[in-house]
């Protein structure tokens, strides 16, 4: 036994020693970076410009906006382009429904709302300094170039700093004892490059307040995904970045949850971006008849099923469970010493947090399936609601026979959040702040809601209760290898089995929901016929024997 252990130890030691050697030999750039004093050997730069040689970037920047000013000396139009996008405005007017959406306006059932919590939320704004409603959206140097174009993986914006990275070493989360080092703006600026899974993921993997929380199909496991998790982004495969599909034109990034494309035009595979209104769909590369013809009937499914329905059999498959429930109504419990506390679930994820309430997490989640035609309607703050029903924060329109819908996989996220009982409307509340009204400081809902509603200038009756809410998220990332796509029988299940699309209305699917009346009549008649011939035959045999005996 002891010998075994020693062998094991030696093995481990060997591995530990060997790993850095291997890394160092395969990646000279990584080795050189810390040793800035030594003249760097020629880095492999595919771009025609080496930003490290630009004299505009040869200075010790004190703040993000200073860097931006330097960027704008050459990239004169960049900030103007950014300012037209949702990444900057956090606002979107749905041209069809006329609903005013965007992070600034929507109340969701995760962290709920941005107003009155700007300093915290704007850690994910492509800008600097949005700490309250007086933020100047026209100041070009407020645009943050680095958060998307960093290649050093050292640039990080922290909640509570209104979109600035830490310029000094900062303890984060507060009182955790963990130190986030001050950002080296010069190094980041000189090493900027194309966006990557890591830069987009810095915000999009952490939506809803943590890794994997919100989307279910976007989490940090996609930074370096293996093939099983995502065939397109797999590092040892096609190694797509987000931008490969979200093909960007003048900083305008296609793909939207507010106006998704549910049923792309019938198209043959083509080169994306050319007269293409929707480069981000599967069809733009694969067309609408992507399966090998032969005997297979798979292509006859493409008019009714989104590709994602079969090819993303489960989401949150990267080992990071996604949040499936957030109940704000239990927030504010304190321990014996009057202190907020947390409890963990079996997998070590927060099950309760005094600041936020109860949570549930799940990995490898089987999606729910719905008809979806691309139209999404939101329950906005102004919308009157019926508190006796589960409020659909967003509802996806679609039906079997509108000709515009396909069956889509969605994550349905369940929540419970405060609403104004006087006005039957959702409320904005103040979660984060250094004042004494913030929920996370003193756990007083009355003050937090009052403050939040004043912030947006909305009427509040002064009385609140909690209402159950539901929010849907289309599942479109984490495309599995083709051998892992759903098999026929997973939907066309025999009547005894469970089919993925059992709850989807308005379709006849061979293999399930057969006409009961027909079955009874058909099998009944067949059985009667069988009994008839058996009886007839039996009688013949019987009488023949009797005849023989005579």
């Amino acid at each position: 036994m002891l010998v075994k252990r020693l062998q094991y130890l030696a093995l481990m030691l060997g591995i530990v020693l060997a790993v850095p050697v291997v890394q160092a030999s395969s990646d000279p750039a990584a080795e050189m970076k810390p040793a800035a004093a030594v003249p760097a050997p020629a880095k492999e730069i595919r771009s025609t410009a080496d930003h490290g040689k630009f004299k505009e970037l040869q200075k010790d920047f004190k703040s993000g906006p200073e860097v931006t000013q330097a960027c704008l000396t050459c990239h004169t139009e960049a900030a103007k382009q950014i300012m037209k996008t949702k990444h900057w405005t956090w606002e979107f007017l749905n041209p069809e429904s006329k609903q005013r959406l965007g992070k600034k306006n929507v109340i969701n059932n995760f962290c709920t709302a941005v107003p009155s919590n700007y300093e915290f939320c704007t850690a994910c704004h492509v800008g600097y300094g949005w700490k309250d409603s007086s933020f100047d959206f026209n100041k070009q140097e407020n645009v943050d170039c680095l958060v998307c174009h960093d290649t050093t993986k050292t640039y990080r914006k922290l909640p509570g700093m209104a979109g600035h990275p830490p310029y000094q070493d900062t303890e984060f989360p507060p009182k955790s004892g963990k130190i986030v080092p001050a950002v080296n703006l010069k190094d980041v600026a000189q090493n900027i490059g194309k966006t990557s899974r890591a830069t987009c993921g810095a915000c999009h993997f952490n939506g809803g307040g943590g890794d994997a929380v919100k989307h279910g199909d976007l989490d940090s496991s996609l930074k370096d995904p293996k093939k099983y998790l995502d065939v397109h982004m797999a590092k040892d495969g096609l190694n797509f970045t987000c931008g490969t599909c979200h093909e960007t034109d003048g900083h305008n990034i296609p793909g939207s949850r507010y106006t998704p494309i549910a049923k792309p035009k019938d198209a043959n595979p083509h080169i994306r971006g050319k007269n293409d209104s929707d480069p981000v769909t599967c069809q733009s590369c694969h067309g609408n008849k992507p399966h090998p013809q032969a005997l297979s009937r798979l292509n006859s499914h493409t008019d009714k099923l989104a590709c994602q329905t079969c090819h993303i059999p489960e989401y949150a498959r990267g080992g990071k469970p996604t949040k499936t429930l957030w109940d704000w109504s239990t927030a504010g419990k304190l321990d014996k010493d009057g202190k907020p506390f947390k409890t963990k679930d079996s997998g070590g994820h927060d099950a309760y947090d005094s600041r936020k309430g109860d949570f549930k997490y799940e990995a490898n989640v089987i999606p729910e399936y719905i008809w979806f035609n691309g139209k999404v309607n939101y329950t906005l703050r102004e919308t009157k609601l019926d508190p006796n029903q589960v409020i659909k924060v967003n509802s996806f329109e679609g039906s079997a026979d509108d000709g515009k819908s396909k069956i889509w996989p969605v994550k349905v996220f369940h929540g419970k959040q405060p609403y104004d009982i006087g006005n039957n409307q959702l409320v904005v509340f103040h979660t984060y702040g250094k004042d004494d009204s913030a929920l996370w400081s003193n756990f007083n809902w009355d003050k937090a809601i009052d403050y939040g509603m004043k912030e947006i200038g909305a009427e509040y009756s002064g009385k609140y209760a909690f209402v159950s809410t539901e929010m849907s998220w289309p599942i479109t990332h984490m495309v599995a290898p083709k051998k892992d796509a759903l098999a026929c029988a997973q939907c066309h299940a025999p009547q005894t089995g469970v089919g993925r699309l059992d709850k989807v209305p308005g379709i006849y699917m061979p293999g399930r929901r057969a006409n009961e009346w027909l079955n009874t009549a058909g099998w009944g008649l067949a059985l009667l016929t069988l009994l008839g011939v058996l009886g007839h035959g039996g009688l013949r045999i019987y009488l023949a024997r009797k005849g023989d005996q005579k």
Partner: protein
Amino acid sequence: MSEKIYVFKVFERFWHWSQAGLIITLLLTGFEVHGSYSLFGFEDAVNTHTLAAWTLVGLWVFAIFWHFTTGEWKQYIPTLVKVDAMFKYYLTGIFTHAPHPFKATRLKKHNPLQRLAYLGVMLFIGPLIWFTGWFYIFYDKWTEWGWDQYLSLEWVAFFHTVAAFLMLIFLIAHVYLTTAGHTVTSHIKAMITGWEEVE
């Protein structure tokens, strides 16, 4: 003793048995696709069903051609002559070893009940199953061809299944009645060798 006559030509026997095999395959796979049980797995059931269906279509095209060129189609002209006698035979005579009221000849292979039943299969069950089957197979083309406004898959499947049940019932009765010839095995032997034993 009995005499033997040559009733079924090689092509007829080939047609009969390959058709029998295909129809049984189609029933087995079809009811799996319908959702009645799991046997081959849905995917294999669908593929086998489709393949067997097209094979049967081919076989029928050939058989129709054969029937018209050889004049054998006349075998299926319905007649009511002796139908009552056939009924009477199946209901009573068969139990008392009464003589079979019908004597097969080269020109009249089928007894009047057979003629009616086979004609029913060919004029009713056949077309029903073929047309609904084709609608089914070309489901994905409905929109392209502008048929989607007139057809619903649910009803297409319904009538296809109705026809399948009728075929199943025919199959049961048919298999049993093969034993109701002059002797228990005379019909079956005829369909294998071509020679039918008659009294």
